[in-house]
């Protein structure tokens, strides 16, 4: 007698039993990634369509040989200039955020001094502050500093907004690292600066990557502060520059989408490259 013949009604499995817990998870994750990717795919598709096509069939596959929008971006705007500006502003802000944030976090996590807890709380208070509400005083401040229409104003504001999360993430992470590593380095004769540079920095890299990803996307995409602080076309960032295609009466969606595609590309690439970094467990094997 074969096995199949003995199968009865109650031997039949439900969906959960067939797929199992992991199978169900897979289904949910695949669905989720589809939802996450859909807007990006529509953006890329629309970049190859004319305004007409976008409204007639928003989800259809475009003719990928139709690169008119990209040509328009290239010829009608200062695209390379905007891209370089975005890189400069985002890059400088990230360097400042990570350098200052890591140093502050190391001091807060490791050295006992008066006001230690207060300073950490002061940084964390920055998390709750919507900086956009302070735009008028900020504008006056930048004017008095003489850096209106200057990328320094953007870099300062971004650094200030990025520090709270960075200090928060890094302080927590550094506290989990074993103290004995620094003691060992001290016994070896390393100065505090060298301990920071040679021992701690390689170990906090995963946390730095998390802090970087956390900050780089909003800074790259920010539209509000450049709009207020920058008027000179040569200093505009990408999101600001692309508004050329948003007119008062008509908007060239095709060109706008191709601009967005080009501006999103570097950030997506950075994200893919960096995500490898924080997955690797750097501290494994440090201490038993």
């Amino acid at each position, binding site marked *: 007698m074969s096995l199949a013949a003995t199968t009865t009604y109650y031997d039949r499995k439900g969906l959960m039993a067939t797929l199992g817990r992991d199978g169900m998870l897979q289904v949910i994750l695949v669905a989720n990634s589809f939802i996450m990717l859909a807007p990006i795919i529509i953006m890329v598709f629309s970049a190859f369509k004319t305004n007409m096509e976008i409204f007639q069939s928003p989800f259809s596959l475009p003719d990928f040989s139709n690169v008119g929008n990209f040509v328009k971006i290239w010829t009608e705007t200062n695209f390379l200039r905007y891209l370089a500006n975005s890189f400069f502003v985002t890059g400088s802000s990230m360097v400042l955020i990570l350098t200052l944030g890591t140093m502050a976090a190391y001091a807060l996590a490791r050295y006992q001094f008066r006001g230690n807890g207060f300073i950490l709380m002061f940084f964390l208070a920055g998390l709750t502050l919507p900086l956009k509400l302070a735009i008028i005083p900020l504008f006056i401040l930048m004017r008095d500093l003489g850096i209106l229409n200057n990328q320094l104003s953007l870099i300062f504001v971004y650094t200030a907004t990025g520090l709270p999360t960075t200090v928060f993430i890094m302080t927590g992470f550094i506290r989990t690292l074993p103290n*004995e*590593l620094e*003691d060992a380095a001290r016994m070896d*004769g390393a100065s505090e600066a060298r301990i920071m540079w040679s021992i701690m920095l390689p170990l906090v890299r995963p946390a730095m990557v998390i802090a970087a990803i956390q900050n780089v996307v909003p800074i790259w995409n920010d539209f509000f502060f450049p709009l207020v602080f920058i008027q000179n076309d040569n200093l505009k960032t990408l999101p600001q520059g692309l508004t050329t295609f948003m007119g008062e009466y008509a908007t060239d969606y095709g060109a706008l989408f191709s601009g967005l595609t080009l501006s999103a590309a570097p950030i997506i690439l950075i994200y893919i490259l960096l995500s490898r970094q924080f997955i690797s467990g750097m501290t494994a*094997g*440090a201490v038993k």
Partner: protein
Amino acid sequence: MAQLSLRGIKKSFKTVDVLHGIDLEIGDREFVVFVGPSGCGKSTLLRLIAGLDQISEGEFVLNGQRMNQVPPSRRGIAMVFQSYALYPHMDVYENMAFGARLMGLDKAEVEARIAQTARMLRLEPFLKRKPRELSGGQRQRVAIGRALVRKPDVFLLDEPLSNLDAALRSDVRLEIAKLHRDIGGTMIYVTHDQVEALTLADKIVVMNLGRIEQVGSPRELYEAPANTFVATFIGSPRMTLIDVARQGDRLAIAGGGSVLVTALPDVARLRIGVRPDAVVLEHGHAEDGFTASVVYTEYLGDNAFVYVRLADNTLMPARVGVNERFAPDAPVTVKLERAAMHFFSAEDGRRLDP
């Protein structure tokens, strides 16, 4: 050469006093073990010697020089940490080279020292590996190697065996003993394990609650403990302490019989200490000796320990031959060998000698 003097060392963290005045002399080439229960301040004392924590009061002198304010790396001291604290992002070679380079040695000298150390510790096949790719015992050897490369006068080892499994522990213990013989530096070793202390040390420092209870060779500590704390801390199973009243030449437990003892200290009440091998058990209750009943027997292969309960409720182990049988709850008589008895003051636990 290394001569260490600790004079009235005190340490407090904020309001908590951890060490209450430590005086200790450590000679050249000595293997000194700090032993004591957790929280007794032995690791703190080690960190003070290393220079990782500031001495609150007192003086630490190394080879005639006051060391209180000298930074750790200038003291000629190397330390092996309990967790090994290997730099996880560097391979074994770099781990050992880091300190050597910071000493200002030239490249050839660093290489030569690492080659020599790696040979001695059998680490040559692992020089290019990261710490996470090593087993516990190998990591331990790298940690020791990192200390050796700096050629220090004094080695500090903070519970170096506590992260190893039992089988490996006795191997590494042997290796450390051998290492001390080969390189001949002064070693200070912290442990809470009295077996490690007894097997390795030239000199044991027993600590409790931030004070030194006794300093001496393993044999001195075992045979003449200075007080009841040292008596019960050293030796396994522990020494039994029995409160007895003196009645002429006899020592009596209330309602539990008495033993005849010659040459007693001249006090009315005292506490006697007996190790399991100084106890003789006899079946049944007899006139001479303490009455007791058997609780259970621990069989260990080459011998056995019978735990008996005395009339004052003290639980007492006695070593017996493996062929002797004692049924649970059976009445027995406990007799003690005079030569192996220790006398302590009933008030403060200090040793009393007749």
